[in-house]
């Protein structure tokens, strides 16, 4: 479970570019269409003879096809969950890196925004440029981490730096206030 600090506000939730997920979905759509192609090619006769059912072959086809669709539907949700739960949560104080490995495993790292020293954007390939996504390398001195395949990396870089500025301003105000006392 992700642990939030008291009063911590979520600024933005960032996910990987949906390209890989779209390809997986495309593959599942093709898999959903395949039985229909097989039916048109006369494969249903083989199925009917296997199950030894000559009356109402429509219901046999319908039952098998819906079960096949259900399997694909579950596979689609496994892919979707993997895509959706793999995220970076940017709050007003931290970046929470949630790495999802399939359905069962997850790793959560917390990084304080005020500790960030440098944010670099990796050189982008032609595909990355055309789809407007890229990878950010966030340096925290001793520690560093990557935000891979994210949409509009420049905007995100600005957003994080903006949040950092706000935190530093807040800290400055507190210090000045305490010195004034």
């Amino acid at each position, binding site marked *: *479970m*992700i642990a*939030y600090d008291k009063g911590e506000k*979520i600024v933005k*939730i960032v996910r990987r570019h949906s390209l890989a997920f779209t390809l997986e979905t495309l593959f599942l759509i093709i898999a959903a269409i395949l039985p229909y192609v097989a039916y048109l090619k006369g494969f249903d006769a*083989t199925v009917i003879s*296997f*199950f*030894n*059912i000559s*009356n*109402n072959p429509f*219901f*046999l086809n*319908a*039952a*098998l096809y*819906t*079960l096949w*669709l*259900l*399997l694909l*539907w*579950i596979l689609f*949700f*496994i892919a*979707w*969950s993997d895509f*959706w*739960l793999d*995220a970076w*949560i940017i709050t007003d104080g931290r970046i929470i890196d*949630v790495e*999802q490995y399939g*359905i*069962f495993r*997850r790793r959560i790292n917390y990084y304080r925004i005020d500790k960030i020293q440098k944010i670099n954007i990796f050189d982008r390939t032609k595909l990355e440029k055309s789809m407007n996504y890229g990878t950010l390398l966030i340096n925290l001195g001793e520690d560093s981490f990557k935000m891979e395949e994210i949409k509009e990396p420049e905007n995100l870089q600005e957003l994080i730096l903006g949040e950092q500025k706000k935190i530093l301003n807040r800290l400055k105000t507190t210090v000045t206030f305490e010195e004034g006392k």
Partner: protein
Amino acid sequence: MSVFQNFTLFSSGPKETLWLLWLLMLLSFLVMSLIFSRAWKQFGVHNSALLFAEFIYYIISIFLLGFSALSLLLLNVNF
């Protein structure tokens, strides 16, 4: 073809295999529902998109399970 013709589950005939397939899918649906629900809730941000996805997942899965069960009943396959 010969492999298919000899294929039976729990010594039942090919017709009964249809119901066993259905039961297997029902079991998969139930297990995956538990896993999804746990994974989604652990994410912590239970926003409207996640709730909508959960709703769509259950509705479509139950529809597909129901439709396949109805087809098997209309096919008059007895377990």
